[in-house]
């Protein structure tokens, strides 16, 4: 019978597996488009430059989406 070598033993591996936690991330898209839609739709509630505020909100919503898109692909 052949003998198991030390080199073979050194290659034996045991690995801690991460917990299987299926994730459901929600609302990060909603925080962008829906809030910008909200600002555009309801910007006239603020009678002082509601339209301008709405445009700023759309831009800010886009920044949030960029953050989501960029960092959404991180581990």
């Amino acid at each position: 019978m052949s003998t198991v070598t030390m080199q073979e033993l050194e290659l034996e591996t045991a690995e801690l597996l991460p917990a299987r936690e299926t994730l459901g991330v929600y609302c990060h898209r909603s925080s962008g488009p829906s809030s910008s839609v909200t600002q555009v739709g309801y910007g006239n509630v603020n009678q002082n430059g509601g339209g301008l505020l709405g445009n700023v909100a759309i831009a800010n919503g886009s920044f949030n989406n960029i953050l989501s898109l960029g960092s959404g692909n991180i581990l």
Partner: protein
Amino acid sequence: MTAVAGHVTAGRATPALPAADAPGPGQVPRLADGVELLGEYKGSGYAQPPSLVRRADGQVIQMSPLLYRVACRIDGSRDSEAIAGLVSGDLGRSLTADQVRYLITAKLLPLGVAAVGEAPAAAPKANPLLALRARGTLLSERAANAAGALLTPLFRAPVVVAVLVSVAAVDWWLFAVHGLGGGLRQVLRDPVDLLIVLGLSLVSAVFHECGHAAGCRYGGARPGKIGVGIYMVWPAFFTNVTDSYRLSRAGRLRTDLGGLYFNAVFMLALAGVYAATSSEVLLLVIAFTHLEMLEQLMPFVRFDGYFILSDLIGVPDLFARVAPIVKSALPRGRQDPRVTGLRRRARIMVTTWVLCVIPLLMFSIGYLVLYLPAVERALWRSASLQAHLMTAAVHGHHYAMAAVDAIGIALVTLSLAGSLYIVTGLARRLIALGRRWSAGRPARRLLAGAVGLAALAGLAAFWILQGQFRGW
């Protein structure tokens, strides 16, 4: 990040435990309390399928076949000599008592699988990079199992076919015939409808998680709790289905796809309610759910798509393969058994995935680091604007709109905090890496410190030149 015990590369000795903890010639090793031997990992992408062991604390450990055979022969009454004899018979090759002691000392003891005498077993836990944080429980393990058991009939084949065919019909009617204009107009007219959309999305999210639990139960495994946490910068629901590691590939895939399937069931239910009420906003929720489902299929973060891909390839932890794949590709890079042991097809798929993940990771983190002040400024402005609008809405007694703005503020604040958390976490890991690289070598430590300071100075200069601190 998974810990690998006893993995050795050429020229580097495995660090063994101090002699005091090693089983002596007469000492009898035992399995740590509560350790369960789960058998072979089915549908593996490895040429020699690994086996699984679960500790009492729920930590699952994947180990190579020889190591598993040794663990199987540990019963608290056999010494190393007896174990060696039995394992030699199993293998058809000779294994000595000293070799068994080595395996126990260097591999099984450090992972808390085996114990010697009264000494408590070490119990390291996996700490994956950028894992879910700040966990809270929504449904306890018992409740999740009860919910899962109740919903398992939805996985019967005729039901699945009926659901999928019905959803396809609804989708065709919604997108090709009816359209979403009515729903959008309704939401813009009345902020209460936007709250309804958000609320139903939340219910859909919880039902999605119940789908994973039910899929896990249907396959014969036991789901853990369903909860909420923070994943990177977003609030996330999660279901602990660690026990599904023991299932066949088909069982694991059913667990993975269970969430998306339950999204389909939910959409069908909404379509039914629409048929009764003609509330267009429900159709908007169906459309958003499609987007959420598509997003879930992304395989580069720990969403459903990641686990689906992992189970299709037969490698349980893809992220743990990034470093070994990169190192093995370098000139004079060491060959890691976690890579060399893969079947050819699996190795190609994992390597392809790694080649996609690395640039995405570098782009995402690089973008975030380079534009951190600008991103935070934009988020702060967004939160301030929404706070301003919320105040105006409250003064105008438009409480539904104020509630929508409040939710927006909360989510933006979370993004703000989460992005800072990611960057500081990255900085901590880089510092730890530098410390490890320069441990005991003053010249290296000086170099690491100098490089770190230069990088910080360069970053600060970039931020200032870009005007990222202006306009807060």
